[in-house]
């Protein structure tokens, strides 16, 4: 009998361990300090689950926690993965808030009825161009495309520093350019789509055909071009231009370039998931984010100087981007054309 | 001397396990190294076959100093207690293995192996897997594998200890026969004195890393050199003055007026062992089973022969 008791105890102990582990996060760090008088909403004891493109937003979430008492749990995940997970697991929303990621995924999710509609009181601050007309998503900033150059490598090969997208199509750069697979990197997709929008269907694809001839292989990760240019494996990398790119350039003695013949861009989305248990908290967070001082903080965390474009009047960083250089893009088919563009792209590049 | 060991000393860190041993073995003779477990006999063997290095002293084989040679360079083979047959080879391959390293054609090696199989009386097992052999058969192959390379010296490390009683007797007999036939010099390690008596031309009794006595079996029994040998070899009744009486040297006869009383009777088959109380001492007595066993409590007349220990 004693043995059974002991085994039982062991079992209970292990079960307890499981439970503690499973719920540990809820109790571990309760943010009870936030008896702020300024708080407009009180979410003490509640949790907001977030899927974000980066862990870098933590300070903003911390600030939100402090103000509202809600605990924020973040998991960083690419937008493609978010879509895939939602498709496979329809039993539950992925999280409460979807923070960042290419707009095409948000458009897709809206079509698939996986988003919750929310119109913040301060939504008017964002220009209509950068939010869904039905109120399913809004953008928190733009990601813009450009390239980074390894001066040493180009010098060794006796090549001039490219200044424009058209330069990349020149045959002298053959084997010296790297970019990521647009099916993996949302920014690359935006660049491909942006240039097609700018040059028109036929000229656009002609252009990409020529660039393709210069490229040995496509990176399988968004960061490949940045890194492989830094290590000198390639002379030119096509990248999303943000503060990280400038920082990295400083680290590795590279040069970041805004092409003078137009800058492709893609809005970064924010949305609430359908049937999210923490819907109210997520909505409160959107309100919170839209407060100018928080938007400024976000701009800093994002390392982008594009937030002011989204919300006029906000002073973020100044990375030297000129608003006039942005390519005129057609956002309406940004999501719907993705599959066809990527298919055509993959036919063009073959096995690279 | 064919094998000569001079002042052999082996230490492990600070502990000396072999104390300056010196002895020799004549050609075509078997020396049995006998001693309780932990006496250093396995270490001695490893010094001879080269698996451990010697700290001091020398080992000479056929006049050649082999002290520093690696095991594979010595003209010595060893039959290990665990048979150590290669499990991935069959009987034939096991037997032939050592011949690979002798400059010998494959055909000759084969012939020689078949001859060895015949000698071992295992002709029909040439292609049998090792795992399919019985313990005794494995032992034979292990012996044959070491013999086939015609070493100058064959070492055997308690080779029969894993066999049952009957098989052990047969194997002793066979070993002697093969040794005679092949004119082999051997060093045979065991803790079993019956085995030592029946196999050894000479027996080296060892204890605590020291040689206690080297002699023939009979010599050891009849003239033990010291207390250890006396107590280790056979049974004896020690007297207070240091003399001793072997149990078979006591003759008891049924006598109601005798001075002895039977305290215990132990029937052994061919012999009967008694414990008798005589002059307030207890004595072991061994009698041949030639008469009705004496019952416990019977008074007996006691006759005996005292031996003296020839302590040096």
């Amino acid at each position, binding site marked *: 009998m004693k043995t059974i008791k002991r085994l039982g105890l062991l079992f209970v102990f292990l079960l307890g361990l499981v439970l503690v582990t499973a719920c540990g996060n809820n109790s571990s760090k309760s943010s009870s300090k936030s008896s702020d008088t300024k708080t407009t909403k009180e979410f003490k004891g509640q949790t907001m689950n977030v899927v974000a493109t980066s862990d870098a937003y933590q300070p903003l979430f911390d600030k939100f926690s402090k103000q509202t008492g809600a605990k924020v749990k973040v998991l960083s995940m690419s937008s493609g993965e978010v879509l895939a997970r939602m498709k496979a697991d329809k039993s539950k929303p992925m999280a409460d808030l979807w923070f960042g990621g290419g707009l095409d995924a948000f458009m897709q999710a809206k079509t698939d009825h996986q988003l919750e509609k929310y119109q913040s009181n301060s939504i008017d601050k964002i220009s209509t161009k950068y939010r869904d007309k039905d109120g399913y998503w809004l953008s928190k900033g733009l990601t813009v495309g450009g390239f980074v150059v390894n001066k040493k490598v180009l010098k060794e090969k006796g090549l001039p520093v490219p200044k424009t997208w058209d330069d990349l199509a020149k045959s002298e750069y053959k084997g010296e350019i790297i970019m990521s697979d647009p099916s993996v990197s949302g920014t690359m997709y935006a660049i491909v789509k942006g240039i097609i929008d700018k040059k028109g269907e036929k000229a656009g694809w002609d252009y990409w055909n020529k660039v393709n001839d210069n490229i040995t292989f496509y990176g399988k990760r968004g960061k490949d071009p940045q890194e492989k240019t830094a290590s000198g494996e390639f002379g030119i990398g096509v990248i999303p231009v943000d503060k990280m790119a400038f920082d990295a350039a400083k680290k590795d003695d590279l040069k970041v370039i805004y092409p003078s013949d137009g800058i492709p861009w893609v809005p970064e989305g924010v949305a609430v998931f359908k049937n999210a248990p923490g819907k109210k908290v997520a909505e409160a967070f959107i309100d919170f984010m839209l407060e100018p001082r928080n938007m400024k903080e976000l701009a800093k965390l994002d390392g982008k100087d594009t937030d002011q474009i989204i919300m006029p009047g906000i002073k973020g960083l100044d990375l030297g981007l000129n608003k006039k250089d942005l390519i005129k893009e057609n956002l309406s088919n940004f999501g719907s054309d993705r599959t066809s563009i990527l298919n055509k792209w993959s036919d063009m590049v073959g096995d690279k | 001397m064919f094998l000569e060991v001079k002042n052999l000393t082996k230490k492990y860190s600070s502990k000396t396990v072999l104390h300056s041993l010196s002895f020799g073995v004549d050609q075509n003779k078997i020396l049995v190294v006998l001693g309780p477990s932990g006496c250093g006999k396995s270490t001695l063997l490893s010094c001879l*076959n080269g698996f451990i290095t010697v700290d001091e002293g020398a080992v000479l084989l056929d006049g050649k100093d082999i002290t520093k040679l690696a095991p594979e360079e010595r003209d010595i083979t060893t039959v*290990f207690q665990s048979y150590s047959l290669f499990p991935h080879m069959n009987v034939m391959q096991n037997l032939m293995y050592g011949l690979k390293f002798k400059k010998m054609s494959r055909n000759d090696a084969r012939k020689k192996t078949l001859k060895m199989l015949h000698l071992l009386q295992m002709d029909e097992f040439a292609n049998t897997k090792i795992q399919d052999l019985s313990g005794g058969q494995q032992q034979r192959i292990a012996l044959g594998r070491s013999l086939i390379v015609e070493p100058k010296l064959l070492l055997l490390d308690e080779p029969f200890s894993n066999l049952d009683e009957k098989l052990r007797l047969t194997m002793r007999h066979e070993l002697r026969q093969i040794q005679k036939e092949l004119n082999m010099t051997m060093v045979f390690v065991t803790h079993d004195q019956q085995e030592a008596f029946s196999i050894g031309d000479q027996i080296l009794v060892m204890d605590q890393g020291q040689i206690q006595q080297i002699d023939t079996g009979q010599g050891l029994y009849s003239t033990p050199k010291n207390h250890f040998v006396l107590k280790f070899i056979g049974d004896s009744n020690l007297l207070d003055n240091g003399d001793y009486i072997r149990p078979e040297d006591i003759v008891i006869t049924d006598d109601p007026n005798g001075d002895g009383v039977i305290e215990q009777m132990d029937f052994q088959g061919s012999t009967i062992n008694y414990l008798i109380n005589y002059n307030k001492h207890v004595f072991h007595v061994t009698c041949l089973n030639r008469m009705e066993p004496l019952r416990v409590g019977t008074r007996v007349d006691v006759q005996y022969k005292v031996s003296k220990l020839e302590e040096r």
Partner: protein
Amino acid sequence: MGKNHLGSKITNWFVYIVISLSILLFIFYPYLSIFVQALHEPGETFNNFFMQNIDLTKNSLFVAIITMVLSVFLAVSVTLCFVFISKKWQSILRVFLLITMVSPPFVTSLAYITLFGRRGMITHDLLQMTIDPYGPQGIILMQTLSFASLNALVLIGLLKQLEPSLINSARSLGARTDAVIKDIILPLLKPGLIVVALISFIRSLADFQTPTIIGGSFKMLASEGYFAVISMGDIHKAALINLTLAIPALIGFFLYIKYDREMSVQHHGLSSNMKAFPLPKKGFFFVGSVILSVIFYLALLLQYGSIVMNAFSVKVMGNYRFSLQPIIDSQIYLNDTITRTILYSLVAGLLGSLISFLIIYYSKVRNDRFMKFIEMVGTFPYILPGTFFGLGYLYAFSKPPLIMTGTSIIVIINVIFKQVAFATKAAKASVSQIEPTYFKTVHDLGGTVVNEWKDVFFPMTKQGFAITFLNGFISTMTTIGSIIFLVHPGQNMMTLVMFDVVQRGEYQVAAVIACMIILICLVMSGIVFGLISLSGKDWGYVFRSKKSH
């Protein structure tokens, strides 16, 4: 007394049923779901997919076969080196190999690119060549390096079990070092060689990380399966790809079972207290194995040196400077992840080992045929790619009858059951050390099944249990594939964070996390081995009594 027996019987049946059901539910059912998804859901048919993407399969098999051959070859060299070196060096090198089991592929690849890349320090700066490292050659090299450690550890373990007198017999018959290795050691290691070869083959097939970093334009099944999910959200395609992967993996597996059995039956001989090593440092194998081992250890040193360097430095204008910045930077990525990862690993190690030992109790001690089947089902997560297992969970537990996705429990269950495969193997080895008569003795003296566990089974295997636990702990600390699709916010694990920051290019942070994982694993190994050696004295006799037979 009677009551006692009744309670024991109930416990027995309860445990038996719980274990069988849990294996069926948490291993069999997820695989079944994903197979059904791949074959029956609308979309491309398997045949169609397979025929059109035959090149992917060819590429994967090509890389897997070459990696298998090379990594086994390297592991053999490293193992053979052990027959020449002293005990002290052996244990140092073993710890080193143990550390390199935690092998984040990005480190290897990064060091490789720095040295042998198109502008690599050796190829470009030193030899004035421009070589393209991207492609199958890069993948093969990286995988070979990182698989060789585990292979070598398995083989070294086997080497230590070789009966010394076999080697001594060969030497006494005149075999020199080369002959001993060629005729005795290598043939006796053969079943082990085949087992590690198959492990490498399966690992290479399932590895989706290395190709994404160093593969260039070379496409393989595992990485395409991963991309199918993360870039296209195409679970159906991922399922098809994984199904394709499963075919060679399953073939490999059945070979594996066959040779694994051989590996365990081989050690039936008698053993002695003799020492066989070190062998004389002579001959072809000595020179060859030492040269290859030195190169191998240098490569490992370089890799792990670069991790440590990355963790403690920042780059300014292309130069490295010492800094604690990476450690500070890593804080926002980690939060409570460290505690959670350790806790999950502890739970997985404990429960995984407990379940595995109980399975082995039924399948081996009791010779229960159904449990043998359960044991085989338990090996699946070991052979099939981790992502496949994860996708299976995502599929199976997101719909009735059992909806668990989004909970922490599903992640924990996943890591527990994922390691049953390896743990049952270790358990089997450990249990085979116990004389069956002990169990009979318990019943003979009036004990029950529960007494068997309490008085014989667990006490006598506690050393094996500790090792199995450690294995489970380490493998959970380093697992990625099976949980990458399962974690929700607030459930992240250290390896996933590391994988994520690597994708993001934050190598410094990744290096910090890698160092932490290594450190945690080392500390845990220290604790476990410390406990074993503390209680070691009491256990000597169990093994001795076995030996003296």
